[in-house]
């Protein structure tokens, strides 16, 4: 069983997925951050593949992408860094990235490498659904990769159903119409949206992302979904002075409470 499916079969609430950008803050921090995240109690790890033009991301993640690229991060190097990560990290690993670097690497070569190093799933926000269905799905499946789709408050019910039918693992519920890190807190309007999705009884579990930054927002998200995804707030936490693993542990504990 894929590690993501295994996780959700064993745990259905308060799942904490943490995003960080590969090669940030320092080029070789990737696996250190992963090990610390697991030790601190994160359930899932989402590694961002840096891209020069991350249009769905707000300033914090944009900047971390820029720093990582300046540090010399590449997709090839990321796979090198992840080569023996499975001897240290057991929780599921997802790669998040924009499609262009993956197309340049070669989609099949990329998937093969993901399987080799032990990646379990992918989040590719600018991959069109029809292209996934018609071109990439068999390749992703061949290498045991689950593809996670996003939904937003504006996604129509029909499209949510279509996404649910095409998803395995979980659905990434974007909490508001925004780029990452743009909004903090969760409004009543958002809670109505969460409730609407809950009532749809989707086949897949849901994790709420965008705007989750602390215990309060994490708790709120967990009341409305199987868990949540934290990105920008975590990037800020590891940007602080001090020892990386201590910063990570402190942040994760403060969120989980």
């Amino acid at each position, binding site marked *: 069983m894929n590690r993501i499916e295994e996780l959700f079969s064993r745990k259905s609430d308060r799942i904490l997925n943490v995003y960080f950008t590969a090669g940030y803050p320092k080029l070789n921090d990737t696996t250190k951050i992963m090990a610390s995240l697991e030790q601190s109690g994160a359930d899932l790890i989402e590694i961002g593949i840096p891209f020069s033009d991350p*249009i769905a991301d707000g300033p914090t993640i944009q900047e971390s992408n820029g720093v990582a690229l300046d540090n010399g991060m590449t997709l090839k190097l990321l796979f090198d860094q992840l080569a023996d990560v499975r001897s240290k990290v057991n929780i599921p690993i997802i790669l998040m990235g924009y499609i262009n*670097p993956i197309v340049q690497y070669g989609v099949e070569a990329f998937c093969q490498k993901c399987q080799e190093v032990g990646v379990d799933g992918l989040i590719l926000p600018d991959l069109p659904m029809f292209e996934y269905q018609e071109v990439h799905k068999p390749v992703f499946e061949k290498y045991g990769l689950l593809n996670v789709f996003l939904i937003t408050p504006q996604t129509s019910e029909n499209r949510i159903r279509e996404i649910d039918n095409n998803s395995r693992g979980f659905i990434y519920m974007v909490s508001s119409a925004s*780029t990452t890190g743009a909004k903090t807190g969760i409004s009543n309007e958002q809670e109505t949206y969460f409730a609407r999705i809950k009532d749809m009884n989707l086949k897949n579990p849901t994790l709420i992302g965008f705007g989750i930054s602390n215990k309060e927002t994490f708790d709120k998200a967990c009341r409305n979904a199987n868990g949540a995804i934290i990105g920008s707030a975590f990037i800020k936490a590891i940007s602080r002075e001090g020892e990386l693993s201590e910063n990570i542990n402190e942040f994760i504990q403060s969120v989980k409470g």
Partner: protein
Amino acid sequence: MKVKVDERGYYGNFGGAYIPEMLYPNIEELRENYEQIMQAPDFQEQFQSLLKDFVGRPTPLYFAERLSEKYGAKIYLKREDLCHTGAHKVNNTIGQILMAQRLGKKKIIAETGAGQHGVATATVCALMGVECIVYMGAIDMERQKPNVERMRILGAEVRAAESGSKTLKDATNEAMRHWINNPKDTHYIIGSVVGPHPYPEMVARFQSVISEEIKKQLQTHEGRENPDYVIACVGGGSNAAGAFYHYYDEVDVNLVAVEAAGLGNHTGESAATTVLGKPGVLHGSKTLLMQTEDGQVVEPYSISAGLDYPGIGPVHAHLFETGRATFYSVTDEEAMKSGIALSRLEGIIPAIETAHAFAALNQMTFKKDDVVVINLSGRGDKDLETYIKWGKY
């Protein structure tokens, strides 16, 4: 061959809609409605009437006698520089503001490089009384100051894009982010034949008034609709798409696209996408793109703020791949010299973007009876400072 966009927005191998889910409803709304809106008689009536009375169309097709003598061909200039606001860009912004109104959108965002599209957008927003925010690279704001001031006078807010190279690519990223954060009441007026489907096709169709007029006017001048050559500069490629549109399938017409080679294609300071690019995905479409081996978008360079975009529209990528259009690239220096030469031969100071199209004449050979149409896409007022600095006048 037929140059036609398919249902999913592809021109051969290029195009499509590579967008995050946050933009999906906006793009879908536009895709589902634009065709019907565009064909509605009252839309066409309003569009044509504004093109005539506000923009000043049809623009002349001018026989350039001294230029013709110099190059040994019959050279005509399509005078898009005489459009209101000084460039072809306004054809598209008029069309899109009417489209936005019919979609019920209350606010407009846009991106701009040289500022011509920003000015054209600010202009139509003023005309319609609509709030307007224009994103512009911080570096471009410096080198295109007169256009920044024009936008502000027209009532638009100009926001500096401070990320990345601080030029057109980053202004586009910021505009897309703004749209993601304000999806309901905002329409994004993209200024070139780039972006997710249906933008490239929609913009090309608003600009196709250029080739439609060339056909009629050439019939009057030469007794035939088709020239031997149509030449236009390409950054994203909207003026070229407009000048080529009704000639895509007329195989006896040579389509010539001219890209900016900056300091030279081998110097690392160029914007010539067909020479230096390969297929990739940026700003919502699959096209030819200047990028590293790792798929990171490369910062292009050109003296012209309107041409330093790292990609070209998907239709141009298709024209290049199929060989339907011939692509040339010319350096800053060649373009500047040609801009000055045109000023002195014909009394027309072209925009530096447009000067690139004229510089390609030096790389071509003609027969004496060849009919050549050059799309004079914009006037050079905004570039005076660059001309002055370059020529030490």
